[in-house]
């Protein structure tokens, strides 16, 4: 069993084990008041991967390593995988190719580390130019374009609705209609 040491976040000195899970205590080095809550993972041993099994006659082999015995199929493409090629992610077993394509296409949510919030961009582009009146000639079509172009793009990871896109479209259409009305009014007067 391996116990990794926990250090004080201020002085970086190692904290004695007696201070773990003991509520707020003083750091023995810098006297900062701190609480250290440790969990079983601190003493968990690293699990070594199972030894690769060499394929014998009549057994299914790994798609990527034909000399190795297949351990399980890829949940996405169904190719047979050995223990080395199997990547477990969110309860799924995937092959490296599916993992790569899933990341590129943004299908694997657990691999994402950032998102652009197009709904907020669209709404800001629709609202902010209205304050300066003239800038809405450009802002409204741009807001409309962004709303339509990125309608299906993933929004916040917290799963917001499309309400911002809808408001941006309505405002954009209204502003464009208003500008058309103004232009018609001044040309026909």
């Amino acid at each position, binding site marked *: 069993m391996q116990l990794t040491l926990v250090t004080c*976040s201020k002085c970086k*000195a190692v904290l004695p084990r007696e201070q*773990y899970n003991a509520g707020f205590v003083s750091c023995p080095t810098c006297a900062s008041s701190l609480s250290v*809550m440790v969990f079983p993972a601190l003493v*968990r041993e690293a699990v070594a991967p199972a030894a690769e099994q060499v394929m014998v006659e009549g057994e299914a082999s790994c798609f990527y390593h034909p000399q190795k015995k297949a351990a399980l199929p890829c949940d996405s493409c169904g190719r047979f995988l050995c223990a080395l090629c199997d990547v477990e992610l969110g309860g799924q077993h995937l092959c490296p190719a599916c993992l790569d394509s899933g990341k590129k296409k943004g299908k694997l949510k657990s691999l994402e580390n950032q998102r652009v919030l197009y709904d907020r961009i669209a709404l800001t582009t629709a609202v902010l130019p209205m304050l300066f009146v003239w800038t809405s000639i450009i802002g409204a079509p741009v807001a409309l374009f962004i709303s339509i172009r990125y309608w299906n793009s993933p929004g916040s990871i917290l799963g917001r609705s499309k309400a911002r896109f809808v408001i941006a479209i309505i405002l954009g259409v209204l502003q464009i209609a208003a500008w058309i009305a103004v232009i018609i009014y001044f040309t026909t007067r």
Partner: protein
Amino acid sequence: MTKNKEYQKIPGRGYRSDGVGLVVRRSARLWLASDHLLMIFSTMFNEEFKRFYLRDIQAITVRKTNNAFIWSGSWLAVAILFALLSLGVEDAIGLWVLRGLGGLFLLCAVIAIASGQSCIAEIKTAVHLEELSSLKRVRHAKAALAILQPLIEQAQGEILSEEPVVETSASSPVANQNSPAATTASPPPFPINPDTPS
């Protein structure tokens, strides 16, 4: 608005300033999913995520700081300054402006005091040590830990205490200087069934 079922909000909200400092501040919030914690740093048009899987969390430390005390003292000092300035003003409009500003800073001081003791929380896994920027107050940290502790323990299972303990420190060079690696046979490795920090 659709209600998000996948993530549960964890108490606490904070900010992280990077690069350009005070100009670019990312708001930080912590969300809980079934198997991981999600730290979201968001600017107006962008969200960045960091995931901490419950099974990988080794420790969470909360250190009390004096930041709230310093801020509330500063706000209070400015409020008093405006109050003193208003004593020497006879103009009615100037008086109201100074009183208004003084009141604003007094409100800031009251909010800073009411928010409670400030803290810095850190989360430790086998490969990294990360500040939990959303947990800036002790009461938020306590509330968050009260939610997280049983879930993390459930995800990680029981501590096996019969085996010898080998102390190592991969994350801190200072740790190596202060405490050389030692092998002991003293089960359990740390107090089990902890209480939420009081």
